[in-house]
């Protein structure tokens, strides 16, 4: 057995425990800042380790490491790293400035990594729950605020429902195949001519459970409320790493063990994708709160990412992966801007608060404009390439209706993205925001550069995504 396969996870788990101990024994000052820095260091080290871990299956075949797992883990770690960094600057003033915060993010990220590497439905479930439980706490982290408490509770209750559905689906699948292990499942599915109804129902239940985590329509209802109620940096994290992990398991399970049943599940993915894209675009128009708007925006983005999955080809998987990369970076960038919306220490979240940002803070406004245009899919920004790849895959898989609706909804989506740009540059100026901390400016500028110059990185990212997509088929 090659225990080094899981070395990054082991290192991350031990770091998490160590930081927790450090935080508890540290008495002199608020250990939030130091713990955050330590967590970021742990993310970085883990990320480096991920790059050097070997391929293979280990731990009694419950843990897999391959190109796909590495790709997803790196993305998750990036998301976690940036989300932690976003909170650092507010060490003294923010409601979340307690040392448990980075630790919870760390454990949640550990869960997402487990999901990406799952070789067994039980690993999948444990990883998912580890990730989710940490997020439930994070949502309600500002526990003296009613909204945050409500958000945490809502997410917890609905999340439990989703977990139940997922678990029920897993049970049905186990009842069919007699195994939870992906390899065994694949053999069982491939060897059965007429698929039993129980298996199909099980797959649908699993799909529903995972769609909840993706906040895909119609399992999205929690998203706007939770996004709005949670502290902005938690929202930024939630919109990143957990979504990536949910996609990781969805792709791994659907393309892997159930890859022979493509014709059966494709229609469901198409339906969910269409519903997400359309609802995400249309409902966002009516929003006045930027965090709710971003919630609908991420619903829509999940729909686009699922479009590549619906193609069910390596090309489609690659499209989805590239879409997730672009989504992660522009989303973090946009949230950096939202976190920076503070006046006299109080968080502002209305869209109208952004009025005149082009005059009061031109740099920040420019960065936001870049993220908004990128999310709308304007070339040559990052978002364009993500959309291009999934549309391309959908067209090649003859999913014309899906692609047409995707184009239509991205036109509608452009309306509310561009409206934010309009508010920032053409509406009369309100009072300026507080000066954002350096870490936020750093993220804004960094993500802005990534978004603008994605065209340069497109080749390498595409190659890595291609390798990851191929790894799923082995």
């Amino acid at each position, binding site marked *: 057995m090659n225990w080094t396969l899981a070395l990054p996870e082991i290192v991350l788990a031990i770091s998490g425990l160590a930081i927790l101990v450090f935080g508890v024994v540290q008495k002199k000052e608020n250990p939030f800042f130091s713990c955050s820095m330590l967590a970021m260091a742990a993310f970085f080290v883990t990320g480096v380790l991920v790059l050097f871990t070997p391929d293979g299956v280990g731990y009694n075949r419950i843990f897999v490491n391959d190109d796909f797992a590495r790709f997803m883990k790196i993305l998750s770690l990036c998301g976690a790293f940036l989300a932690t960094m976003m909170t650092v600057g507010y060490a003294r003033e923010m409601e979340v400035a307690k040392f448990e915060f980075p630790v919870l993010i760390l454990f949640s990220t550990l869960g997402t990594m487990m999901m990406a590497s799952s070789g067994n439905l039980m690993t999948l479930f444990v990883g998912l729950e580890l990730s989710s439980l940490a997020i439930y706490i994070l949502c309600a982290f500002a526990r003296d605020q009613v909204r945050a408490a409500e958000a945490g509770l*809502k997410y917890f*209750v*609905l999340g439990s429902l989703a977990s139940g559905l997922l678990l029920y689906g897993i049970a049905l699948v186990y009842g069919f195949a007699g195994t939870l292990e992906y390899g065994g499942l694949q053999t069982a599915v491939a060897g059965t001519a007429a698929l039993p109804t129980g298996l*199909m*129902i099980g797959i649908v239940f699993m799909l529903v459970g995972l769609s909840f985590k993706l906040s895909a*329509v*119609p399992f999205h*209802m929690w998203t706007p409320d939770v996004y709005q109620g949670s502290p902005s940096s938690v929202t930024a994290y939630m919109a990143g790493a957990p979504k990536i992990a949910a996609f990781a398991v969805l792709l791994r399970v659907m393309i892997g063990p159930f890859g022979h049943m493509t014709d059966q599940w494709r*229609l*469901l993915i198409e339906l969910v994708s269409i519903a997400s894209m359309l609802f995400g675009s249309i409902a966002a128009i009516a929003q006045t709160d930027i965090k709710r708007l971003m919630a609908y925006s991420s619903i829509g983005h999940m729909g686009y990412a699922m479009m590549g999955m619906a193609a069910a080809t390596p090309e489609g998987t690659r499209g989805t992966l590239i879409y997730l990369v672009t989504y992660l970076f522009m989303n973090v960038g946009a949230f950096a801007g939202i976190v920076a919306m503070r006046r006299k220490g109080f968080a502002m979240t209305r869209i109208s608060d952004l009025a005149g940002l082009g005059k009061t803070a031109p740099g920040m406004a420019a960065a936001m404009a870049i993220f908004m245009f990128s999310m709308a899919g304007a070339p040559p920004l990052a978002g364009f390439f993500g959309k291009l790849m999934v549309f391309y895959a959908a067209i090649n898989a003859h999913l014309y209706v899906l692609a047409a609706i995707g184009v239509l909804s991205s036109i509608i989506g452009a309306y509310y993205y561009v409206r934010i740009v309009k508010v920032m540059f053409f509406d009369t100026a309100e009072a300026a925001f507080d000066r954002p901390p350096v870490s936020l400016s750093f993220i804004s500028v960094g993500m802005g550069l990534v978004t603008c110059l994605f065209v340069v990185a497109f080749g390498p990212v595409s190659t890595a995504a291609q390798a990851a997509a191929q790894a799923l088929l082995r």
Partner: protein
Amino acid sequence: MQTASCLFEIAVFAPLIGFLTAGMGGRIIGDALSQALTIILMLIASVAAIGALMIEGQVGMVTALVPVADWIQAGNFHVAWGLRMDALSVSIVAMVCVVSTLVHIYSTGYMAHETMPRFRFFSYLSLFTFAMLMLVTSNDLLQLFFGWEGVGLASYLLIGYWYTRPSAAAAAIKAFVVNRVADLFFLVGIALLYVEFGTVTYDDIFAMVPAHMNDVYHLFGAHRAMEVICMLLFIGAMGKSAQLFLHTWLPDAMEGPTPVSALIHAATMVTAGVFLMARMSPLVEFAPMTRDFIILIGGTTCFFAATVGLVQPDIKRTIAYSTCSQLGYMFVAVGVGAYQAAMFHLTTHAFFKALLFLGAGCVIHAVHDEQDMFRMGGLWRKIPLTYVCMWIGSLALAGIFPFAGYWSKDAILDAAWMSPAALGRYGWTMGCVTAFLTALYSWRLIFLVFHGKPRDAHLHEGAHESPISMTGPVIVLGFGAVLGGILLAPHYIGKDQVAFWNGAIANAPGNNIIEMMEHAPGFISLVPSIAAVGGILIAYVCYILQPAIPGAMARALRPLYLFLLNKWYFDELYDLILIRPYKALARVLWKDVDEGVVEGIPEGLARMTVASAGQAVRIQTGSIAVYAFTMLIGLVVLLSTMLFAH
């Protein structure tokens, strides 16, 4: 030869330099300097053009190409920008430059009291000249079309020079639009020619004519491609040369300043159509049906315009209709295959028509912008010089021996009589009747303006001779109108014509009309002159001896009088069958289609999207039970889909 091409280039590009400098820098260097500059450049161009003509004449009018630049290189489609030198282009360049120079000089006097910026006027004049020179020196149809459109643009700018006058702006638009209709046919003709021949260069086309002689083109039945192409080119020419049905813009173009009218009618613009036919003669020769059509249109225009000219009260409009009529003669000549005669008449006409217009300008100038002939009268003592010049111009126009028009008009009518073409005699008849009418309206003009009692004492009192800058050019043109015919006849149509044209104009092997017209019966040759003299006498009777006759006739034949006065109701007809339906259609497209549908659909969609957004978030109540229920509904829908789809 080198010298000739060099001079030729100077002649063509000097007006361009004048246009650019005066047009771009006129605001800085001022009116006076722009004026002087364009005139000097035109003088240089004229001298160069005459020099080029002389040298070409000495070396026997060989065809040469002066390359200027590459223009289009697309696949195997090459178009070079070059100046073609042969008898046709060299002679017309010289004529255009000289007339244009005189018009430039004349304008300094005529426009002296103008309040609008004059540099604009002079730069447009130069642009007009340059465009016409581009047209005549082209070596392929594309460059010709460039010049063709350039002429159209310049005419638009000049007719609308007083753009604050609604009538001038309307006339400019009318000229532009009517020409555009014709240009569409012309363009299609060029395109068809390219499709058939694979080239637009003259020499290549002409070389391939025998090979494509019997090509068939299917358009509402099978036709010879040659006929279709020539017909399309001729319709293009009809627009520029104001032939019947497409003539309506020409009289309205009188809204421009008088020097512009002179330029349009004499040297640039209207002659382009005749030139095109002469240039394409190797093609037109093999389209007999089209040529019959040309005779029909030419002869009819000739007669139509003359009848309208008979009753116009406006001095400039009378002359304008005479141009229309004279162009009809030229097309009759083209139709019977006597392109040389057409070019001859074009040249002599340039001189005497410029003379008449500039003379009319002197009259108008003398009576302070009055153009109604019925308010003039008895002016000959006040402006004797203008009077003499108008006599010369009218004699030339009427074709009285030995003035310029006599030679060219008689040649055309003889050719029409001798022509084997089916409609040759029709052309001749129309031509002779028109010769009578021409003399009648010309002397009507002279008698009304210069003789009899002053009808408006106030105008008469203030009348004065124009300054030397205006009378000078008129006198020069007067010499041209007297001597042009007799001097040029041997070269253009006489014994030297073969050597002079040297292949620039092609006659088909069987077409020896130029030789045949020399042998027209003596009596036939005399008919036009007799008709002209008759016209003068009748005019004398009607307007000097018994001034009551015209009024009585107008009353007695009132319907006919109104019919003529309203130009055969062409404008009203077009207004009824074309302009009003078009405007109605445009209004529907604007109000209903564009504002209604084209704008309405996106706006409606946007409204619908925003409204549906409001609906979409209504289920977002915040209640966990609703959320959980929605999830379960989703689960059921997906389950049903999964189970029933398979």
